[in-house]
């Protein structure tokens, strides 16, 4: 045996389904008889749907089938009065051996399936308040793009907070935010300058690529992100070109899959190009 690599998807089950379902529901509008779609339609995939729904049962099915056959073969031998000796001399024994081989194959396959079952991790609801703060001097198209990015992330991934900082200004703070003590129950304001001087931002800028903190509680750099809810589980730091950073906070440990990471990288590039075109009229100011 040699060690191979296997893709293991850690998929939080129910929350993402909730999000997907809500999106699908909004798409299924009532068909108007005039403008209905008349073209080809796909056929129902019965097997695929059934297997996806009964995942656990199907995973252990080969083990039961193999185990039951094993017992059946032995039973057959004893009932028929043949000694349970594994020799290949008679055709009965040969047939038994072949069946045993198949049973063992099935058992092993079932074990492999069980070992690659993705773990389901529970969602931790962020404690904080919802907020939506967008920088005031932005053209409409930029604002709608930022809101689109937030809607996509919150619908598809486990993202619950999003902060975009560009050119030293906090462009967007949306989703859940930590409550600020000094302001009495208001969401905490993002101190962009302090963040940009910190090691998280500089590390990400230096490497130029995305950084994924899969379990935020274990990172000492967590103190640099006080505006996120204190029980944020996972964070993705996405640099936006040279001048900005997008901070995506999620509610599940290791909740962002590699596919999510790839999409976030590309959305980051798009936001960078969009924001770079905006001309800032106000100079950089130091935030207290």
């Amino acid at each position, binding site marked *: 045996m040699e060690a191979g690599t296997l893709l293991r998807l850690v998929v939080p089950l129910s929350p993402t389904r909730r999000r997907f379902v809500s999106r699908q529901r909004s798409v*299924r509008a009532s068909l108007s008889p005039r403008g209905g779609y008349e073209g080809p339609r796909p056929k129902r995939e019965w097997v695929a749907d059934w297997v996806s729904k009964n995942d656990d049962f199907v995973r252990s099915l080969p083990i039961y089938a193999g185990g039951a056959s094993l017992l059946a*073969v032995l039973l057959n031998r004893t009932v028929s009065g043949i000694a349970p000796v594994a020799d290949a001399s008679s055709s009965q024994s040969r047939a038994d051996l072949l069946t045993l081989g198949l049973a063992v194959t099935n058992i092993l396959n079932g074990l492999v*399936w069980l070992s690659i079952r993705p773990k389901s991790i529970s969602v931790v609801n962020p404690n904080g308040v919802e907020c939506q703060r967008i920088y005031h001097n932005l053209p409409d198209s930029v604002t709608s793009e930022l809101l689109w990015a937030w809607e996509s992330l919150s619908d598809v991934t486990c993202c619950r907070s999003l902060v975009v900082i560009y050119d030293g200004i906090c462009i967007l703070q949306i989703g859940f935010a930590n409550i600020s003590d000094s302001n009495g129950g208001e969401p905490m304001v993002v101190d962009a300058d302090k963040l940009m001087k910190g090691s998280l931002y500089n590390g990400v800028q230096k490497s130029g690529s995305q950084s994924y903190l899969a379990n935020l509680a274990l990172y000492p750099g967590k103190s640099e992100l006080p505006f996120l809810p204190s029980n944020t589980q996972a964070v993705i730091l996405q640099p936006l070109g040279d001048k900005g950073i997008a901070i995506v906070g999620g509610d599940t440990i290791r909740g962002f899959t590699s596919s999510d990471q790839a999409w976030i990288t590309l959305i980051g590039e798009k936001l960078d190009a969009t924001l770079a075109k905006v001309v800032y009229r106000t100079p950089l100011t130091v935030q207290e």
Partner: protein
Amino acid sequence: MSIVTAALSLNPLTSGAKFNFPSKFTINKPLSLPKICCSQNTTREQQQLNLSVLRFTLGIPGLDESYLPRYIGYAFGTFLVLNHFVGSDSSSITPAQLRTEVLGLSLAAFSAVVPYLGKFLKGASPRDQKSIPEGAEQIFAMSQDIADNMKEDLAWGTYVLLRNTNSISVLISVQDALCVRGYWNTPKDLSKENIPDWFREQIKKIGFSNLKDTMYFQQAADSELKEMVPEGTRSLLVQPILRAPRLSPSQTEKSEGFLLLASSIDYAYTDKDKAWIAAIANKFSG
């Protein structure tokens, strides 16, 4: 204070190509599956999707071990039948042997079906790499008479869809704008300006503009669509772009266009892929 982070590097092939509207766009290598590979110096907290698991492998390149039960099922089933006819005289076969053989054959049939079921379990990755259709050329065409930022959005949208999903071709049609990218089955002598019109005709024939639900053809596509999509297309996803509904619930959502993605492998789009594709479609609905 050291921060332990996981550095993820982009695929070096496509990191150089920005989504900004390039005048000449070439892909000279097959697009790869998603896409960000983790660097080697990872910590245990790193979201490590590629876990090393002890897994049985024969070490033969090109042989997919998950199909092994199927091969074993065929082989042992054949041996059982041989044993029945050749290994003993027909007269001296006992009922016990018959029982064993029936059990063995049904188990062989089950083993042959097992890899097919395994494909739909959670955590199963698509095994086949997407293949580039032969003889098809790559095109990238867009309607000319649209606003610049719409052009940029379309270029970016098609780039992102090709890169992050298992697609070999993508088509976006929103109101008057049309953009195609990837491998398509266009007639050979079509000039670049006429490409959008040709696609518009095809679309009108099929009637995609009236679509309101997402359609996902998971296996070989229908013949009606075969004229447009490249050869070797196995799964197809059509995502309508709906205008965001206004406050009055009586107003039904109107379709503003659609997104069409074609792939050369079966069951190419997972639920997550479909969710992201819906998110990209929303970008054009505003």
